[in-house]
Every structure is written in C-alpha cells, then in structure tokens.
C-alpha cells in the first residue's frame, strides 16, 4: 500500500495526537508536519511543505470512522 511509512508514523504518534481529536494531521515520511482544523487546510500545508512528494492527510480519531457502501465496489489496487 502507498504511504506505508507515513501510516506507520501516524500510528506511532496517534496517542500524542489524540488531544487534538477531530483535526487533520499532515505526515511526510517519519515526521508530523502539522495539525489543522480542516481537510483543505491540511492539504494546502501538505502541498506547500512537501511539494509533489508523497504525504499523508489523516483525521485524528481514537476510533477511525468507517465509510459505508450499500453496493459492492471493486477497490482498485495500485502498486
């Protein structure tokens, strides 16, 4: 899966981030670049600081919100 390193960083840092639950974290490699109120703000800063390099935007949640679909989807798998 893409963004493996960033996801690992997020998982490791989640306990420290939980006081800011509901906000959006930007992770580039093994660093938390910042925490922002909205998805769009986080995305803006992600592109400003990481440029076109990979970065992760993740909502800070103790229990991750699941998306639901009433139809089956063929999830594409990018390698």
């Amino acid at each position, binding site marked *: 899966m893409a*963004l493996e390193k960033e996801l690992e960083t997020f998982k490791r840092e989640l306990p420290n981030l939980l006081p800011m639950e509901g906000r959006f974290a930007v992770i580039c490699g093994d660093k938390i670049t910042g925490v922002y109120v909205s998805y769009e703000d986080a995305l803006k800063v*992600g592109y400003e600081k990481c440029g076109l390099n990979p970065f992760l935007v993740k909502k800070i949640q103790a229990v991750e919100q699941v998306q*639901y679909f009433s139809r089956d989807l063929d999830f594409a798998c990018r390698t």
Partner: protein
Amino acid sequence: MPHLTLPFSAGAPVIDLLVGVSGPRAEALKKANQAIPNPIPVRALIDTGASCTSIDPTVLKSLGVPSTGTIPCHTPSTKSGQPHMANQFDVSLVLIHPLLTRAFHALPVIESELCHQGIHAILGRDILSFCLLTYDGQSQSFSLAF
C-alpha cells in the same frame, strides 16, 4: 438555489460532473512549473447508500493524482469488523449548471472500478449533504438542487 431536473439514465439518477486536481495540488503543480491537467467530464451515479464519493481509477490516473490518505470502507462483501482499507485521493469536483456551478475545491474520494457499469463516479452523501435531492420514480426523473 440552482437545480437540475433530469430523466433517469438506464433507470438510474446519473449526472455529469467535472473532476480535476484539487486546488492545493494545482497550486503545487504551478509552483513546480508543471502543467495542470484539465478537469475531466465524468458521469456519476447519485447513490444515497454511499457515505462518500468514489471515482474510477482511469480518471484519477489521467489526472495524475497520487494517494494522500487511506480510509476504512465496508461494503456488503466485507466481513463485520474487517473493513477494506481504500486509498484516498484529493480532487476538485464541479456540479455543472447552465447558470451557476457548485465547486468543491478539495474533496477526499476513494477509487473503485466503475467503468464497466457505464459510469465513472459514485456521488455519495458527502456531496449530497450540501444538496436537495428529489427522486421521482413515477416520472422516472430526479431533481438536484445545490
């Protein structure tokens, strides 16, 4: 509030949208002296059973957008408590109206294979929460106000 009233397409509420790179990504491309891909017209099925919008990978590939997130998803085929982790992508999305369009400049979407269904997107409740949808099964038409 602008609205569209359209007949069903193959028995379903289908609408034309424009999908492009997100506003922040467009800025980053501009800064890097790279071309900003033109928005792509797509046909989207309006689906109140979808909690978020999904886009066919051919569209995302044409736009050259990389994944910027992951999100757990449940479908009828996933086992309880074992959601599928789907890649998430940031895009812009425009609801087209002859007089007044509605643009979403930074929208997280997931990718799923939809081309074989004759559509390129599923318009989910993340967008519908900003709209008024009327589904008229008897006249085989729907209205979307936004």
